């Protein structure tokens, strides 16, 4: 499986993503600097977390207009797989590859903590190694993860099984208390209609070995391998 990680000037989870992909696929991903629009043929492009261009404007807004992002869109249009984690998710919504927007957290504060996620749909290239309704623990670390979409879009996402992960409590219920940032329908991650693009705020790449406090993030990467191989 061939992968590429796009690096914007203030990406800061790029190394973590590169390590996770290398560990799981056995191959070092291509590392693509944002000014380089020559992306080799790959199975998966990852947009890592961070602050891309400082995010003084709307998070991900500038990155979405970066030349390299056009190539990401082309890759996605060809049916290529794309994941956007945290800032990567914000960039994906800014490009329109995924619907909705990520607004400032309801608390108006940056939040870093472990959250429970329920796997809503395991029939996707990004979740097939999990069981449906499995509860996994993955850390979040963001200031703008409050997922918003209009009612019609939300209804479509729900109906089409495009909500990949939802914030839930210990009992697996999507309660208000379990929602860390005010996201509509407790949405933590969604996929595109063609199921080839996923955006999520939590960081599975931070939880792939016991020393990091758990391995619940492994299933995410294993799913992608299952889907591609």
């Amino acid at each position, binding site marked *: 499986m061939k992968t590429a990680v796009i690096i914007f*000037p*203030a990406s*800061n*989870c790029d*190394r*973590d993503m590169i*390590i996770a992909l290398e560990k799981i696929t056995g191959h070092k991903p291509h590392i693509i600097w944002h*000014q380089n629009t020559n992306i080799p043929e790959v199975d998966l492009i990852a947009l890592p*977390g*961070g*602050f891309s*261009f*400082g*995010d*003084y404007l709307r998070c991900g807004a500038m990155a979405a207009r970066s030349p390299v992002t056009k190539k990401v869109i082309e890759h996605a249009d060809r049916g290529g797989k794309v994941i956007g984690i945290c800032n990567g998710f914000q960039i994906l919504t800014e490009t329109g590859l995924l619907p909705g927007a990520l607004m400032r957290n309801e608390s108006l*504060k*940056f*939040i*870093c*903590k472990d959250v429970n996620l329920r796997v809503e749909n395991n029939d996707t290239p990004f979740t097939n190694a999990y069981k449906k309704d499995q509860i996994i623990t993955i*850390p979040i*670390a963001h*200031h703008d993860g409050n997922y918003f979409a209009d009612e019609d879009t939300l209804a479509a996402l729900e109906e089409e099984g495009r909500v990949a992960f939802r914030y839930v409590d210990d009992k697996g219920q999507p309660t208000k208390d379990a929602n860390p940032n005010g996201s509509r329908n407790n949405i933590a991650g969604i996929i595109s209609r063609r199921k080839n693009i996923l955006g999520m705020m939590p*960081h599975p*790449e*931070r939880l792939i070995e016991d*020393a*990091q*406090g758990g391995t619940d993030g492994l299933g995410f990467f294993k799913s992608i391998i299952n889907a591609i191989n």
Partner: protein
Amino acid sequence: MTWNNTIEITKQLVKEHGLSDDEYARCLKILGRTPTLTELGIFSVMWSEHCSYKSSKVHLKTLPTKAAWVIHGPGENAGVIDIGDNQAIIFKMESHNHPSYIEPYQGAATGVGGILRDVFTMGARPIANMNALRFGSPEHPKTRHLLSGVVAGIGGYGNCVGVPTVGGETNFHPSYDGNILVNAMNVGLATQDKIFLSAAAGIGNPVIYVGSKTGRDGIHGATMASAEFTEDSEEKRPTVQVGDPFTEKLLIEACLELMATDMIVAIQDMGAAGLTSSSVEMASGGGVGFAFNLDMVPQREEGMTPYEMMLSESQERMLIVLKPGREAEAKAIFDKWDLDFAVIGIITDTGNLTLTFKGEVVADIPTQPLADNAPEYKRPFVMTAPKASLDPKDVPAPSDLKQALLTMIGSPHLCSRDWIWQQYDMQVMADTIQKPGGDAAVVRVHGTNKAVAISTDCTPRYCYADPVEGGKQAVVETWRNITAVGATPLAITDCLNFGNPERPEIMGQFVGCIEGMREACIALDYPVVSGNVSLYNETNGTGIHPTPAIGGVGILKDSSKMVTIAPKNAEEILLLVGDTKGHLGVSLYLYIMQGSEKGTPPPVDLALEKKNGDYVRSQIDARMISACHDVSDGGLLVALAEMAMAAKMGMNITLNNGDIPLHAYGFGEDQGRYILSVAQDKADDILNSAKLMGVSVQKIGQTGGNDFMLNDNITISIPDLLDTHRNWMNNYMNID
């Protein structure tokens, strides 16, 4: 704006620049003439307390700074220690107190930015941020605003640059009502043969300015940090710098990329006193001169004068001496990262800092005497008078011990800091293996089995009551915290926050704390490798509690051996290492329950500390221990409750307090103690080996169940403990 560099230097102007008559006379002697306005500005910031350490230097020299593993001690941008395998850890802690009081978000943010630059300028990739924060009383009308702004600022900067903030400490005390403390620490990882220093060399070599443009922000920041606060300090808001973490991130990456080549001769960040102190330090350090054409300095604003350029504290700037002929290659790197790159001068053999602006020389100062002949004061001091000791029997027992424990752990002083930590990205870089909330933060050395343990500590109550014991205890507590995760403590950085040194009793506190620190560092073979002094922490004549914040660093050779404070299983045996005498003098119990700071701090027996700590570490290393927690603020019962909460598991405790009142036994802050949680089948081995080593260890209970139980008559459910622990800060910060 009209500007006259040769304006008459009046007595009033000299005074406004914070120079005494003696200091000005010294300046005249060095120059052999009257200074220009730009020169006066340069002398003023270089000889400010903040940059020159003129009141503290004579005492700082007494601290031990050497050990076999120390590569660079104080004098460089940060301390450098050897962690084996050609790797080094570079670290330092620095204060940003006054700016943070005036503008908490930017003050704290730029504090983080500044300390990051001190570390990466030496060639290290920053891997962990820590901090030590002191706020006024929670009831003070400004505290909520300051806490909120400082935490957001620390997070806002560290989160964006992508360096995890992994721990720290937060205290509240009315002595900080008008003068909070924001001490930021950074730890970086470098290769030993790729460490960069600041001493310039090579006549004719180009001097390069990189990073952000220079603006008018922060002019006279160093001078502000060297004076007491008054009511009108708010008017100094314009002297607080504004941080741009995005540019800092670019600067880190660009500098590390440049450092991977062989183009750099010397490099120095522009910190306090900006272009002035960086150029003077580089030139005087190398015994050379610098000739700058200030027209070449990238400027953010129009019409900036040489005076403003030299004194600006605009952030995210570095000064680099390159090997000749490498400018284009180096520029390509900074172009890639969209950062300014300007050749602003060359190295000369004059020994002078010569500044040209619009074709005219506006300053020409010999750098050696400017740096080396800075004033040095032996300020008069009066040692703090010994306080009367406090007999535990004279401290009233609480009417309800259970309620007392809940009050303690639910107080501002011991409650959960989750509200703070959750605003920091604790895990970016994916090497954080012990997050805030334990004894020390632990971060893996990337790609190895090693890990670095870091702890910041100080108990200002102790330092105020007895500076010598307090200074000792601050050092020892970091050593103990690092030990408690299983690491070997190696060295410290210090951030010494005190009041006005011109007052003999304040100077006495400083001298006392240094003496205590010195004794502890020597006894523990735990030298000081970097640090910072912040004096004049006073508002309207009232000083803060003396606060020598210590940042300790240690190494775990095998990170898989690390332990946390959370017992892993039920039915483990809880063991107490060290002796309990029920020392309640200046304890948190006394402060919270009686509102008193009477008595003397618990004495630190350095030999016993070392013996107990070395024993605990050896048992962790032998994988005999499931969890370990040092006993500090709040004493034994608080430490046990913290372990139970971390594990979300009950425990059953039986204390044999003998003739010591139970509240003194349970809440006394005797030093040199740890609680161990061990599997049943290992308990006897541990008790036996402790006996052989002459270490006092006794069984005090067992883990398991859903309740925290004490002596069979106090029962608190774990959810109750957790709620009480969590509530205070959440409630406090969420009141509109």
